[in-house]
């Protein structure tokens, strides 16, 4: 086995995307006048090698550790058990009931809505983790989505207004990336769930994430979710990623390109459309 290089974490499979992202981000950072942040460092020595394509393990159940009822996220009778307060337990229970009737729409099926944080760690299809001294980018083929984690020493936004991926800043503790995420919109606009069982968070959620490689081919993401609006205590969720074969090719993902499974806004049902656009169900 060859020793992985520690010079760069830009994968071969994602090199074009990474180059585009680097150019785009570099351009953006250059436009911040007088900013002490975003200085273009080029030395990536000492940063871990997270190159290549990665696949999330264990299916798209967000919290397998508390999952009951077996199966996957849409299996009838199954659900997770986060430490919800009574109000948010009622919201989740309603979602599970709808899911069991096949009436809970996946917000990802509304093509054009990005996958926010922390669901961005709960997607099928390949991931790329691009490590730079000033930022880490999480790129997902599914969506596609990008989450930016600033590691250039900047503080959190003073008044984050609630976005899909929120505001993430972090630092390196040895080979582990530790970052906090605030400013999440959560379920405020009812367009972000964590999995298709209907798990949700409030816009008060605050997540501390620790990412590190546990083996040469395994990357562990441990999230400690605190949410004064929805949870009675911290909720710890761990996701694991395995490295895909070298040379794995990633592609476009245009959800709206030929979406024949749109959500009926009046019923919440996921529709099935024929080739002429007429409903089949």
């Amino acid at each position, binding site marked *: 086995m060859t020793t992985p290089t520690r010079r760069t974490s830009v994968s071969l499979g994602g090199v074009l995307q990474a180059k585009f992202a680097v150019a785009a981000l570099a351009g953006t950072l250059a436009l911040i006048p007088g900013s002490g942040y975003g200085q273009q460092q080029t030395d990536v020595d000492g940063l871990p090698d997270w190159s290549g394509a990665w696949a999330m393990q264990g299916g798209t159940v967000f919290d397998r550790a508390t999952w009951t009822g077996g199966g996957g996220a849409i299996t009838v009778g199954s659900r997770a058990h986060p430490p919800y307060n009574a109000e948010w337990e009622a919201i989740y229970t309603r979602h599970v009931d709808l899911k069991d009737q096949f009436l809970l729409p996946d917000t990802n099926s509304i093509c054009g809505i990005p996958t926010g944080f922390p669901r961005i760690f709960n997607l*099928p299809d390949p991931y790329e983790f691009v490590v730079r001294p000033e930022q880490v980018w999480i790129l997902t083929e599914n969506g596609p989505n990008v989450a930016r984690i600033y590691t250039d020493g900047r503080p959190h936004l003073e008044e984050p207004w609630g976005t899909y991926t929120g505001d993430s800043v972090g630092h390196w503790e040895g080979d582990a990336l530790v970052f906090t995420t605030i400013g999440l919109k959560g379920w405020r606009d009812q367009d972000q769930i964590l999995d298709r069982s209907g798990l949700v968070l409030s816009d008060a959620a605050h997540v501390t994430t620790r990412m590190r490689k546990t083996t040469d081919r395994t990357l562990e993401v441990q999230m400690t979710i605190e949410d004064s609006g929805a949870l009675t205590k911290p909720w710890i969720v761990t996701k694991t990623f395995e490295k895909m074969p070298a040379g794995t090719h990633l592609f476009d993902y245009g*959800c709206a390109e*030929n979406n*024949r*499974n749109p959500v009926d806004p009046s019923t919440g049902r*996921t529709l*099935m459309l024929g*080739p002429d656009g007429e409903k089949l169900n």
Partner: protein
Amino acid sequence: MKSINRLAFLTLVVVGSLILVQPVIAHHSGAGFNSAEVKEVTGTIKEFQFKNPHVWIQVLVRNAEGQEEEWSVEWGSPNVLARQGVRPSTFPPGATVTMRVNPMLNGAPAGGFIGAKFADGTSVGRWQE
């Protein structure tokens, strides 16, 4: 495609599909398809829509009344399938094919893809005689 290459290619597709059929179809709610039933339809490929988020195989099938009916068969994401060897040419227009699907619960001419067998005996997806 030469027949031997086609056979090798389709073998790869079959192996990959054994692993991936269920997860990729599961992207959307499974409410439309009856996963407990397997239906077989034979017809002619009209179009293979190799597009995101899911591919669709349009098949012209002659029903019991002798009328031509267009079936819509949904499979996984083109990205996942492409990594397993499926290509837009996998279902060429005009080819005769027998499809095994999980049919719609309401009887509409559509289903979730399980496997397909071509007139030359090659197959794609999960296909056991």
